[in-house]
């Protein structure tokens, strides 16, 4: 399921494929509606009614590239949709309207010494689909078309996966599983749009759902690589679900934060927090919706986020799902 979800193409503003796939999966297990922006809002009946209205959210969109110009030589100029580091996409494959493309740049042999020692600028990169002229390229590509990372879903190492778009199809997958299963309390599951360009879908979804408590299922940066030490690692793979106390968009509800750790302990679920205040997610929009929403984020520690090569650990994804289910049992009573 996660493999299928990750390989679907769905950039911010272009989430249709992902939404339709999810609707097909969940339609027999809940009632749902799609709002004007494209958020998929699902009402799932639980064993009982919660004391407070509960919303769980994950975003459907992924980072990608948008074509901004077709040049005389048939190459395509592009901008990033969402935060992408140019060095992670230089020399990689993309897919655009079903056609193969590559992200080109001048050969290393022909660079000056100082050019070799500088990371590429996004503006120096372009997409080559093999067209020889602008006219040829225009037969296959139009301005505003999206180029997607072309990456396989690779299982490797000890329980690891590598693919594009694990951010946040991992969250989508957890929600689909919960909707298909039994849950203790009535819950609104929201598959949001446009998170990567500023948590825009979450804003309208939170307004219309109007929850008291929200859980955001996400991925977050794991910098547990040899180039970082101690707290700079942020969080660790195989360290379990990441529950945040603060990031750049949200100071999380302190009681819910404690409840998450207590619940994890009670249920023997591996849990950790983020040791750096960085990043942000749909919580930023949700927790200040209307007159405020008590919000918790549960995230999968993920390496090389926003690249064609996101790396996650299956054990962490399981921990996040287990923790979300266990927390749901608790928050229905508060």
């Amino acid at each position, binding site marked *: 399921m996660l493999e299928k979800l990750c390989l679907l193409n769905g950039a911010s503003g272009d989430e249709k494929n992902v939404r339709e796939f999810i609707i097909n999966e969940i339609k027999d297990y809940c009632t749902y509606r799609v709002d004007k922006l494209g958020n998929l809002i699902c009402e799932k009946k639980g064993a009982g009614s919660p004391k407070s209205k509960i919303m769980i959210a994950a975003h459907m969109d992924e980072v990608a590239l948008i074509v901004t110009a077709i040049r005389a030589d048939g190459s395509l100029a592009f901008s990033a949709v969402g935060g992408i580091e140019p060095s992670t996409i*230089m020399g990689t494959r993309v897919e655009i309207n079903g056609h193969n493309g590559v992200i080109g740049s001048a050969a290393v042999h022909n660079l000056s010494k100082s050019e070799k020692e*500088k990371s590429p600028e996004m503006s120096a990169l372009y997409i080559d*689909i093999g*067209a*020889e002229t602008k006219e040829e390229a225009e037969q296959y590509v139009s301005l505003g078309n999206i180029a997607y990372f072309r990456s396989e879903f690779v299982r*490797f*190492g000890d329980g690891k996966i*590598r693919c594009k778009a694990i951010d946040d199809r991992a969250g989508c997958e957890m929600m689909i599983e919960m909707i298909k299963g039994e849950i203790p309390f009535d819950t609104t599951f929201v598959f949001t749009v446009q998170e990567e360009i500023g948590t825009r879908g979450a804003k309208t979804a939170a307004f219309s759902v109007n929850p008291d408590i929200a859980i955001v299922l996400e991925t977050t940066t794991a910098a547990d690589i040899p180039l970082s030490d101690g707290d700079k690692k942020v969080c660790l793979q195989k360290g379990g679900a990441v529950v945040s106390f603060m990031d750049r968009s949200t100071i999380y509800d302190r009681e819910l934060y404690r409840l998450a750790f207590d619940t994890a302990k009670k249920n023997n679920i591996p849990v950790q927090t983020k040791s750096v205040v960085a990043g942000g997610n749909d919580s930023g929009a949700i927790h200040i919706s209307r007159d405020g929403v008590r919000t918790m984020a549960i995230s999968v520690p993920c390496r090389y986020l926003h690249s064609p090569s996101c790396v996650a650990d299956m054990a962490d994804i399981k921990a996040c799902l287990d923790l979300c289910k266990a927390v749901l049992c608790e928050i229905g009573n508060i």
Partner: protein
Amino acid sequence: MDINNVLKALCSEGGVSGNEKAAAEVALSYLKKYDENAFIKNNSVFATIGNGEKKVLLDAHIDRIGFIVTHITEDGFLKVAPCGGIDKRFLPALQLIIHGKKDIAGTVVSIPPHLASDNKPLDFDEAYIDTGYSKEELEKIVSLGDNVSFCSPFAELLGTRVSASALDDRSGVAVILYALELLSKENINCTLQILFSSEEEVGERGAATGAFSFNPDIAIAVDVSFAYASGEKEEKCGKMGKGAMIGIAPSLDRELSNELINIAREKNIPYQIEVMNGRTGTNADRFAINREGALSSTISIPLKYMHTPVEVVDTRDIISCAELIAEFVKGVK
């Protein structure tokens, strides 16, 4: 010969400089059709066709750029050194294949924004490879000295253009195989010597030993050269799809190069001239000064994005190069 299939088969193999066996075996299997005694020695592939007086060597290098494993860290990451000229600018999040006891996936680490301090690329010393294994598990699969190559499957672009890593110089191998097919119905009046040489990317070493073994009179290095693409200097590049690039350089034999140009003109084979100002940076540099010397030239396939995982060639140029070689060989008495 289906050029795309041959390129796909050749580019799917590892074969980083010094460890070319896997790729050499694939090339050898194609060569057996023309010389059942073709063999691999020192990771280079050798074949001989015909028994004329003049010895004509056709060469393409079988190695590809990559890395070699130098260290395994306590937490199961690999450290590597480059084999050949690798561009540091695209290292972060680079997808790799580690050729250990079995092939496993690897990914170069990338530094997340909160740790990135400047605009400098990762140094090779910082380019740790994430294997997803603990050190203990990893050491059962990977040893120091194992090679690592780009993971970048063959892809067809629009028209006749294709992309893969290792098109430098597996497309040269394809040129020679296609030329042999063109020649298979012809009388060859020379001794045709085929060399798919090892270790070009680390200093044309397989070419040196291979040429010593063959001792040719005439030698042609079939390699790739720069095709114009955005960011390159137009006057320093060939043009993709515009034919075989025939080398002219002080280190090459001018008469041989002129002969190739004349043949291309006479036979209407698309060609372009590539002028270099000293040595060529190809195996031809070695052939020219092998033993007592050989008449040497270069025929190159224009290629975009050299030494990246997404090199691009136009198969029309592969055909032009092969036709030119076949016509030249036919004319050698």
